Structure formats: structure tokens, C-alpha cells
């Protein structure tokens, strides 16, 4: 995102075709390069992004249209493929919601409360994220699997998927809310309380608006991570088609049974979902930032 600045930076060059001296809000202003890096820096960034992200994505998309639009459409709308996408999105939404609630709570406790062992808890938050996901799967399987020591059997069930995904996405909301909470102005809260607002009202009217953007972006990241997750669900999920088979497992299966087209097509569908969710996230974040600025 190139932000517009009204003053042209060093090394800014008029974009090709930019003959009219248009103002900062003119027709071509979005093409104008601003900032101190100049075209070379931007070219490097774009080239690197292309090599790492854009070209492979383009290649995948091309592969998924090997048999034209109808081939792609058939691959994505095969009942088993649709079901796997549906399950993936459904489970990921549930996981994101759980994360939003629990993550905010944990962040709150870590910032506002003090208790022995707090440092350990704080360190543990990142552990599920740092663990290799397959290890997460083994960990959960040993506790909730068929030989469960506490007699809770989540193997090959949707709750098992939810637990696995909640495990690996735990840090997202916590880590995005924590810094905001630390920075938050406590005097406003105290003022609200002294004016007779109860705790819930204070939280709803004062705290939540401040934390909103952080919670949304954390939840969105958790969602995006969950829909693409493979390692953590591979053991505990059971991969039962139409019940607990995630899209990533469906893709893997298509590769194994030598149907690369199906795999590519479902991958593209999954990418589109991730992309859309990230886009919505951006828009929400921008809107809340704007509202924040307007309210000042």
C-alpha cells in the first residue's frame, strides 16, 4: 500500500503518461512513486514478491485451468471438494470466534492481572505456534485420541479439528491485543467508572472500541491460518470425507491419487477464500482507523 503524501519525496519521478500537472488527487496520482526509496527499491520489492508469491500463484492458477473453465468448475464443485471447503470454512470460523473470545480474555489477564508464574504463561502462549504442527497433532492425539488418559475421545471428529486448530492459532489474538491493551489509556476507564458506569458498560463503550481493530485483525489471521492448516489436523482429524476432511487434506489426497488438476483447482478456491478474508480484514481495519480518527 503506497500511502499518498502531498509532498513529493526525493527521487519521485512522474509516471509515464503523466504529462498534465495534476494535483495529488488527479487522475494519475496513484501511479506516482513517492517516498525515499525511489523506483529501484520498488522494482526490487516487486521482483522479489513476484518470484516468491505472484509467479507461483500464477503457475498454480494456470495449472488449475488445464482443461478450461469447465474442468476447473467440475473439480471445484465435485461434492467431496465442496464438502471439504465447507467444513474448512465452518471449522475455521468457529476457531476464529473462540480465539477472539479466549484470546482477548488471556491478553486481558496477562496485561491487567499479576500472579505468580505469569511469565511462564506468557512464554507458553507462543509455544503452540512455534511447535511443528505435526507435533501439535501428536500431542493432542495422545491426550484426546483413542488411548485417552482422561477418557475424552476427539479423534476423527469435528470437535477434534476445532481443538487442533484452536491450539495452533492461540497466539494470534493474544499477541495482537496485548500491545494495544498495554498502551490503552486507563484514565478514561477510571473516569467512566467514577461517572457510574458499571464494568460491562465500561468494557463495551470504552475498552472494546480501542481493542476492536486488534481483535479483528488477530481473529482474521487466525481464520486465515486455520483454513490452510494441514499438519495439526492430519492425525487427529481422521480425514473422513464429508465429515472431517479439510480442504488441505483433500488436496493432498488428489495429488496422491494422481489428479493434479483437482488438487490445483481446490487450491485456487482455497486461496480465493484466504484472499477474500484478508481483504475484508483490511477494509474493516481501515474503517475502524478512520472512525477512530473522526472521533478525536
Amino acid at each position, binding site marked *: 500500500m503506497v500511502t499518498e503524501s502531498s509532498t513529493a519525496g526525493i527521487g519521485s519521478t512522474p509516471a509515464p503518461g503523466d504529462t498534465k500537472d495534476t494535483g495529488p488527487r488527479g487522475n494519475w496520482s496513484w501511479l506516482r512513486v513517492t517516498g525515499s526509496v525511489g523506483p529501484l527499491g520498488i522494482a526490487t520489492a516487486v521482483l522479489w514478491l513476484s518470484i516468491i508469491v505472484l509467479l507461483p500463484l500464477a503457475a498454480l492458477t494456470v495449472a488449475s485451468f488445464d482443461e478450461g473453465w469447465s474442468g476447473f468448475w467440475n473439480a471445484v464443485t*465435485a*461434492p*467431496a471438494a465442496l464438502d471439504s471447503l465447507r467444513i474448512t470454512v465452518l471449522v475455521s470460523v468457529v476457531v476464529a470466534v473462540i480465539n477472539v473470545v479466549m484470546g482477548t480474555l488471556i491478553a486481558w489477564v496477562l496485561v491487567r492481572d*499479576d*500472579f*505468580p*508464574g*505469569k*511469565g*511462564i504463561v*506468557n*512464554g*507458553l502462549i507462543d*509455544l503452540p505456534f*512455534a*511447535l511443528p504442527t*505435526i*507435533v501439535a497433532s*501428536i*500431542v493432542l492425539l*495422545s491426550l484426546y*485420541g*483413542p488411548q485417552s488418559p482422561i477418557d475424552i*475421545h476427539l*479423534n*476423527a471428529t469435528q470437535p477434534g479439528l476445532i481443538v487442533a486448530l484452536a491450539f495452533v492459532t492461540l497466539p494470534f489474538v493474544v499477541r495482537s491485543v496485548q500491545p494495544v491493551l498495554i498502551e490503552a489509556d486507563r484514565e478514561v476507564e477510571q473516569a467512566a467508572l467514577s461517572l457510574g458506569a458499571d464494568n460491562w458498560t465500561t468494557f463495551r463503550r470504552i475498552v472494546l472500541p480501542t481493542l476492536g481493530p486488534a481483535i479483528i485483525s488477530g481473529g482474521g489471521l487466525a481464520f486465515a491460518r486455520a483454513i490452510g492448516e494441514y499438519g495439526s489436523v492430519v492425525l487427529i482429524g*481422521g*480425514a*473422513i*470425507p464429508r*465429515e472431517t476432511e479439510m480442504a488441505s487434506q483433500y488436496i493432498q*489426497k488428489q495429488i*496422491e*491419487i*494422481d*489428479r493434479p488438476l483437482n488438487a490445483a483447482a481446490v487450491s485456487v478456491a482455497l486461496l480465493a477464500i484466504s484472499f477474500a478474508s484478508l481483504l475484508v480484514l483490511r477494509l474493516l481495519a481501515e474503517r475502524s482507523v478512520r472512525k477512530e480518527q473522526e472521533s478525536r
Partner: protein
Amino acid sequence: MARKTWLSPRRRSVVAALTAFAAVALTACGGGASDTVGGSGADGSGGTLNLYAYAVPKPGFDKVVVEFNKTEQGKGVVVNGAYGASGDQSRKVKDGAAADIVNFSVEPDITRLVDAGLVDESWNADATKGIPFGSVVAIVVRKGNPKGIKDWDDLLKPGIEVVTPNPFSSGSAKWNLLAPYAAKSEGGKNPQAGLDYLSQLVSKEHVKVQPKSGREATETFLQGTGDVLLSYENEAIFSERNGDPIEHIVPPVTFKIENPVAVLKSSKNQEKAVAFRDFLYTAEGQKAWASAGFRPVDPQVAADFGSDFPTPQKLWTIADLGGWQTVDKELFTPNTGSVAVIYDKATR
């Protein structure tokens, strides 16, 4: 932050790191898919062989390689085994995985490499047709056989859930489907009867999961999915000897499984690879296979281990159905083979 915690920030991070490390150390105990088999004093002085095999013969190779290392030819030879779904492994080798010797579940997986120019066309020209060991299709049930499963018809009882792998990636799955097909169609004389049975078997009522390999199917079954597992007899024997709570039945009419081995033309260690392949057919090699639960091809060794391997009333073979080329084309070709179409329709 008025109160002091009992840990200074610095000690805190150390504790956190230690906790994390301990957790990882306690949980990190999963083996890799590829490993050195045998490991019996083989130091690599005799070179290294890369073996690409289907999912279940690992216990057999573990025993065989130990015996091989005792021979003059096999001294100090390290065998690196990679195991996975047969079709998947075959495609990997075709796509350039550096294998010296391959062992797949079904012949077409080797034929794929012959077509790609990686395996000599005469690989199965010897007396045993490139098949050093085999098995039969067995029905595996929970210990005590609570559902009273005895024969193929019992699998179609209402509510019986059957675990069998995906025939597009697994060789085991092909054998598993061929066994009732041959039994119901009288060795292919009445194909429709066989296909009717399979349509009922692979319907959503009975086959709910599609593991990618025979080994994965066993794991799925052991973790509590399903009432019946269709599997290689050797896989069932291996699992029973492990103490898993299962038992297996060799149905009165079943199918002979023949698992081929071939050496790659491109092998950098051709001489040792050939020596290893030839060793599989020797008395020592055959005994090692038999003790791991695989049916040996050497009649003498087979007689010695007779008690482990009951003889079914009727054992159909792939030759009875016209050989792999015919069977693969007519039954398993994606989108056109009759079994492939049935399976696709049921799992779409």
C-alpha cells in the same frame, strides 16, 4: 505492576524457554517415513541402496536386510527404505526420485517405470516372474469378532463399516477389491456379479474413509474407525504380533497377492542392487520373509511355515482374471475402468 513477581524478567524468559524445550523434548517422538532398515552393523562400507517400497513390507525388509548383511555380497551394505502408498511411490520414482531397487504392491506400478524407461523390460522374465514374496487378502476384525464376520457377504450387513484404502493410490486397495470381485464373479466369468457386490461394498454406508495406503488403513482401524479392515494377511499378522486387539480371518475364497521387486536401470549401485534382489529368493531371504508374515514363494520354505499360512478353499490369482494389464485396463483405469467408476461415484 506494583507487586513483584517471584521471577525477574530475565529468569522468566529462561524458565519459559526451558518449559518450551521440555515440552518439545517430551512430545518429539515420531519416527520419519524414511529410515535405515536393519541397522545391524552395516556401516555403508558396502555402499548404500535406496529402496522405494509400498507401505507395509517394512517389517519384512527389517529382517531381510539383517540376513543380507551376513552374506559375502551384502557385507556393510546400508539399505535406506522409503515406504508409502504403492501408486504414489511409483509416481515419485518415475518423477526422478533416486531409487536403486523398488518393491511395489502391484505389477502396474512397475510397468509404469518400464514405460518410462527406468526398469528393464525383462524384469519379470525369470522363473518367479519378479515376485519374491506375497500374501493373501484377509478380513481383519476387532478382537473376539463382535460382529461375527466370516465371509465376504457379512461385510454387506447393515451398518458394518469397512476400512480399505483408496485404489487410486494404494496397491493394497486393488487387491482388497479384487478378492470379493473374483469370489463373486467366479474368477471373472460373471463380471457383473462381482461389480454388483463392489457397488454395494464401496457405498457410503460401508466405506466411509479413504486412507492412502495399506499401512494408513491399519492405523485408521487401530485408532477405532470401522468394524472391518481389508488388508494383507502379513499386515494383520504383524499387527497381531504387536499385541494390537485385532484378529484376522482368511475367507474361504480369497485372492493371491503377488508383490513384485525390480532393480532400476539407472541404479548407481547396480551390482549390489542385483545382489540384494537375488538374495530375496535364497533360502535365508525366504525364511526372513516368512518369519515376518509374508508368504514365501520357495516351496520348501512354504512347507516349513505351513502352520502360519492356512490354505483357503479357493485362491484366485491375477492370472485367472487375465493378468494385470487386462485387469488394470478394464477395472482400474481412472474414468473408464468399471471398478474405478464405481469407486469414483461413491466417493465424489
